[in-house]
């Protein structure tokens, strides 16, 4: 039985874009029609062709000259996305922005994704935000949070030039998302590059200062439920330090083992943002095909995620 599939394209043939090919390919609601980049000799475009997908080295023009694409994953750069966003909007194509450009609202799939999908552009914030905001949100639905702090540790090998030259932006946008989506009154986001060999798996430490009365069991259950929701689209997500109160704050630590599609498994940081982007695209696809939502039980469960 073939699900109705949404025609999509990937823009950007670097590590993120290439890894996305595998994840989009695995999703039965998405139909990958094109992988577009600007470097005809790139490994990413070669990989796409090897897997049997059409490619273009004309960048966004390669997408705009077609009439079938309904959604684009933009895995290029913040500067490039600022150029792409209005063009995609004008063409009526939904953009999922994996850069720090943040033209549209920020989305964390298991936190603020709704069944309706009415915006032309959504931003995936950052890998650390995708990994930590669900936990912070899980606590804030039990008790108000006065302060949340996250420490993202990534292996040096998985932090490319883009990350290294945008550390300041990373901390600012993640801090803001901890407040806006996580529910904390104040927040701090810290990033640490770890050069250990073999490369470490992406980890995040999360500290939350609750403001009010609560039952620790309720908090743990809320977190456990959230972790299960996350694992539905990021199977490699797991707690490494179970939530506990340390004085005035909760301590939680998580790690993300990547699927190892294109990037090595230690690059869970890139994996989680890609998995989240695909989850958003799938939600959009399902919102367009409502008959399919009631036809299969799996579809019902995914609408219950919000």
């Amino acid at each position, binding site marked *: 039985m073939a699900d109705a599939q949404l025609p999509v394209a990937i823009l950007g043939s670097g590590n993120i874009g290439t890894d996305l090919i595998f994840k989009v390919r695995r999703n039965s609601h998405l139909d990958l029609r094109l992988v577009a980049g600007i470097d005809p000799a790139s490994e990413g475009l070669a990989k796409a062709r090897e897997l049997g997908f059409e490619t273009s080295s004309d960048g966004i023009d390669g997408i705009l000259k077609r009439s079938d694409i309904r959604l684009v994953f933009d895995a290029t750069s913040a500067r490039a996305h600022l150029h792409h966003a209005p063009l995609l909007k004008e063409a009526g194509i939904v953009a999922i922005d994996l850069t720090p450009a943040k033209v549209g609202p920020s989305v964390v799939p298991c936190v603020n994704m709704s069944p309706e999908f009415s915006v032309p552009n959504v931003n995936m914030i950052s890998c650390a935000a995708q990994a930590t905001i669900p936990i912070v949100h899980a606590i804030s639905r039990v008790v108000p949070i006065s*302060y949340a*702090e996250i*420490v993202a*540790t990534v292996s*040096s090998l998985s*932090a490319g*030039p883009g990350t*290294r*030259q*945008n*550390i*300041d932006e990373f*901390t*600012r946008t993640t801090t803001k998302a901890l407040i806006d989506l996580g529910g904390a009154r104040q927040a*701090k986001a*810290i*990033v*640490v*590059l*770890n*050069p*250990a*060999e073999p490369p470490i798996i992406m*980890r995040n*430490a999360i*500290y939350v*200062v609750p403001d009010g009365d609560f039952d620790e069991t309720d908090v743990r259950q809320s977190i456990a439920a959230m972790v299960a929701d996350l694992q539905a689209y990021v199977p490699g997500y797991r707690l*490494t*330090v179970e939530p506990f109160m340390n004085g005035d*704050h909760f*301590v939680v*630590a998580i790690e993300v083992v990547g699927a190892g599609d294109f990037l090595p498994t230690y690059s869970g940081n890139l994996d989680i943002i890609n998995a989240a982007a695909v989850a958003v695209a799938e939600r959009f696809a399902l919102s367009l095909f409502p008959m399919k939502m009631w036809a299969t039980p799996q579809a019902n469960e995914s609408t219950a995620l919000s």
Partner: protein
Amino acid sequence: MARIKFVDVTLRDGNHTVKHQFSPELVRDTAAALDAAGVPIIEVGHGDGLGGSCIHAGRSAASDQEWISAAIGAVKRAKIGVLVAPGMATISDLERARELGVTVARVACHATEADATEQHVRRARDMGLFTVGYLISVGMTSADRLAEEAKKLESYGAQYINLAESQGHLVPTDVAQRVAAVRRAVNIPIGFHPHNNLGLAIGNILAAIDEGATFIDGSLKGFGGGAGNAQTEVAVAALKRAGHEVDVDLFGIFDAADVFAKAVAPHPMPAIDNDSILMGYANVYGGYVLPIKHAAKKYGCSPRELVLRLGERRVVAMQEDVVIEEAQKLARDSAQQAA
């Protein structure tokens, strides 16, 4: 023989020893005394630098603004500096510090990650600050790699390279090798920042100077992470005895040490206890002395075994959560073995 510029880090690295609880009054009085002794650069702030107050690394007793303002108001000649770790301190933190009167920014990263500092080094230079590239844990990588990283910092605009040997793991020949390699690679001055876990801080300073280092970091009474830093007043005396020129007055620095000791009393000086020796020996970041002791006690595991495990895991700075995780693991493993 050499002309040495002294950088005192009592009021920044020393904050590690007191879990970042220095009062603005202590900062004011100590800065005044250091300035009176002729110390040219005084670094102030949380142990992990600007914006360092957090649950992860320890919450400060006072804000960056309070500490910086206390130091600025207390000195007549000395430059007040801050440590800036990208990923912890933001560029707007640095702008605010500059507005308060800070004139020195030392941009810090792990010894192999210089390209993560480019943004901050360039902006610090644009702000007109004396900008230093500060490599942390230089004992955790090779001399050749250090030289490469130092070159990058120089290309971004760093005005000297500070080599911080955070673990207190190196012996003088190791230090000489590293300073020499960096010396061959860059045209800007080199600084050295030892820790005293193996009792080698002063010896390592002399070895660094012999290979061309001209900036030296120290801390009054040796306050600092782990077994502490090179003790400023000892270093000044030893440098003068070795025939080097240091623009710090010997009796003045003794007075500063007295002022600081009185202000921080009854807190004892850092001692080279068994745990600190082991950390230096095993090459584990000195800022973890207190987290290791607390975690070992809380989870019921051996602090010695915990140090060895953290050394194997090659933890770097700002991984206090790994200390907790390994302590919990070790406690479980020990309980299983006992059962």
